[in-house]
């Protein structure tokens, strides 16, 4: 018995060492170079609470680090419990604002949000994460796809790499005759939902499946989480997946260039090209409610606009019952929009907001009461 316990203890130590090792390689919150931000009015409630989308968690940890430096003694506790849970907790009054992959749904949710706030709630798209079509194709770099072809790859109609549809977009490249292995997210995720919305919007009906939090393409093998699909793609030759760009880069995967709905040249995935698409996005909400018309993002037709990005919102009250909370929420969002916080985003796999769009966000944030 004693020996068993000792054995268990040794095992635990070994295991925790492994776990710690694993954690060590993960990115740490608020890495160097985060500077205090100007133009922020600190004050109000010292400890804000928020929860929701895990897609924006890495951005939030950086924002929080900047917030703590800018406003001494102030902090925010963000729990990445999932968008649905985040919206529910906000509507239930347990949190001060929600992080969510999608805006409040019209109808019941919007009504409940108005009751919770005693004022309209605003959807503020603060964090944009570009989604890459990442591939593992020995011997091929700079793969080019467009909306309709991507849609037919992800619904199985284009089943081999040397299919004429792909070959037409990639003249002069040695495409293997191998079958395409599609790796998809098996868990419900905002990335899957947004990527499928892109496939629906940009393919002129070629996708032919519904967009949802689960993958509906009907082909391929599922893996869990962004890390799961990135690993699966790295380990499986001739496979392709969709994943947040940071995972594709870290996994050393190829990232397809996209010909957007305007035709023209293939657009690589960079902060600048995603910014071009964000600047051209249409806002569906009224006034300071910046709910986006995502189709206008996915169908971006400006030259040099990369059309696949996941927009995550902060859902806030336009007029908080408690002034202290309003001041703190405003200060936090002002911090998040400050240059220092925005500069830290690319290393976490997000894109900084382009100047034009940031102006609109700043106006909205400053109007929170």
């Amino acid at each position: 018995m004693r020996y068993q316990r000792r054995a268990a203890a040794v095992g635990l130590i070994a295991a925790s060492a492994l776990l710690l090792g694993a954690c060590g390689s993960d990115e740490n919150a608020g890495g160097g170079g985060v500077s205090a931000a100007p133009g922020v009015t600190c004050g109000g409630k010292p400890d804000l609470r928020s929860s929701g989308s895990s897609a924006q968690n890495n951005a939030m940890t950086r924002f929080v680090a900047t917030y703590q430096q800018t406003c001494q003694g102030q902090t925010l506790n963000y729990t990445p419990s999932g968008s649905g849970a985040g919206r529910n907790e906000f509507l239930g009054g347990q949190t001060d604002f929600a992080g969510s992959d999608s805006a409040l749904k019209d109808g019941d949710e919007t009504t409940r949000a108005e009751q919770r706030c005693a004022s309209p709630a605003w959807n503020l798209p603060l964090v944009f994460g570009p989604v890459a079509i990442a591939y593992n194709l020995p011997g091929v770099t700079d793969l080019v796809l467009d909306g309709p072809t991507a849609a037919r790859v992800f619904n199985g109609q284009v089943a081999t790499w040397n299919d004429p549809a792909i070959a037409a977009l990639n003249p002069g490249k040695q495409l293997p005759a191998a079958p395409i292995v599609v790796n998809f997210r098996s868990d419900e995720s905002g990335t899957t939902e947004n990527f499928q919305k892109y496939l629906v919007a940009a393919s002129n009906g070629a996708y032919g499946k519904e967009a949802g939090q689960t993958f509906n393409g009907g082909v391929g093998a599922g893996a869990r989480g962004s890390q799961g699909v990135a690993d699966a793609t790295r380990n499986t030759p001739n496979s392709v997946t969709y994943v947040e760009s940071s995972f594709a880069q870290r996994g050393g995967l190829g990232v397809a260039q996209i010909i957007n709905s305007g035709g023209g040249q293939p657009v690589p995935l960079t902060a600048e090209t995603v910014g071009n698409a964000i600047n051209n996005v249409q806002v569906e909400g009224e006034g300071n409610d910046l709910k986006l018309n995502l189709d206008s993002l996915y169908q971006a037709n400006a030259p040099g606009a990369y059309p696949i990005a996941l927009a995550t919102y902060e859902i806030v009250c336009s007029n908080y019952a408690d002034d202290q909370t309003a001041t703190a929420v405003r200060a936090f969002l002002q911090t998040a929009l400050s240059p220092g916080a925005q500069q830290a985003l690319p290393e976490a796999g997000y894109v900084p907001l382009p100047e034009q769009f940031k102006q609109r966000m700043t106006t909205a944030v400053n109007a929170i009461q």
Partner: protein
Amino acid sequence: MTERTTEQAPPQGPRDEDPAAGSATLDTVTDPGPARGGRSRGSSSGGRGERVFRGLTSGSGLLVVVAIAAIGLFLLVQAVPSLMANNANFFTSPLFDTRDPANLNFGIRDLVVVTVLSSLFALVLAMPVALGIALFLTHYAPRRVARPFAYVIDLLAAVPSIIYGLWGIAVLAPALLPVATWLQGNLGWFFLFAPGNLPVLTGTIFTGGVVLAVMILPIITAVTREVFAQTPRFHIEAAQALGATRWEVIRMAVLPYGRSGYIAGSMLGLGRALGETIAVLIVIRAATTPSNFSLFDGGYTFASLIASAASEFSQPLPTGAYIAAGLVLFVLTFVVNAIARVIAGGKVNG
């Protein structure tokens, strides 16, 4: 000679007498003794102590039963509304679609297939190995070697299942690829090795089953080892006196004595395999088409499906669908335990 000893050694004879005799003597010594003494001394505190202690013990016993019943009831109550709203056949549909609360379509066919296939495959792999290890440790290995070796086996049980999952998908799956390819190429006519519903041969039930086998190995080994070690000395010596070789001793004395414990240990292992969550979730890839009853299928087990969706439980009806799946797993585990008890002849040592 050997014939007679095999007849004598099997369970019924000495083993049944032994515990019975033992408990009888215990009863006569302990039970009436203190009770009578307490009463004759007429001390009320002794009587109260007796009642308090009896209350505590029977309370603890009841608590377990009540807790199990409460869990069952909770699962049932939560599941019924979703089952009523289900548009698909709960037992035969391979779909598990709860995206639209107003149009639930969920069934457990594939969950049962993946859960049972992966667990049974793990059991088939782990049982002979565990038997071999247990026999080696108790009857072949010198004491010096046996002890540290046993700790190493126990250490396997201390490794967190997420580690097994990561090891399974990152290390084991690529290593098993040639084996899987060979099996499918040469034995593909047999339904278990037929092409599955995944486009790849890594991250299948096959891979998951091997991972599960490693995970349940220490449980089966530990229980079996303990039982084998308790084989009555005189059984072994009697066999040796009759000129039995070591293998014959094991076959005539150790195996019959330890059979029920071995089966009980295996069932404990099977229970763990059925309920294993995170390792399976990481290792077995999700598929888009129904299962082909092949070991090269992908999909979800009950536990991994629930875990994969747990973060999105926000509406009662879809949540209830997963709880209904949990209820089936709950019942399945009971059935497995019941079968184990029947096989072990009601004498479960584990």
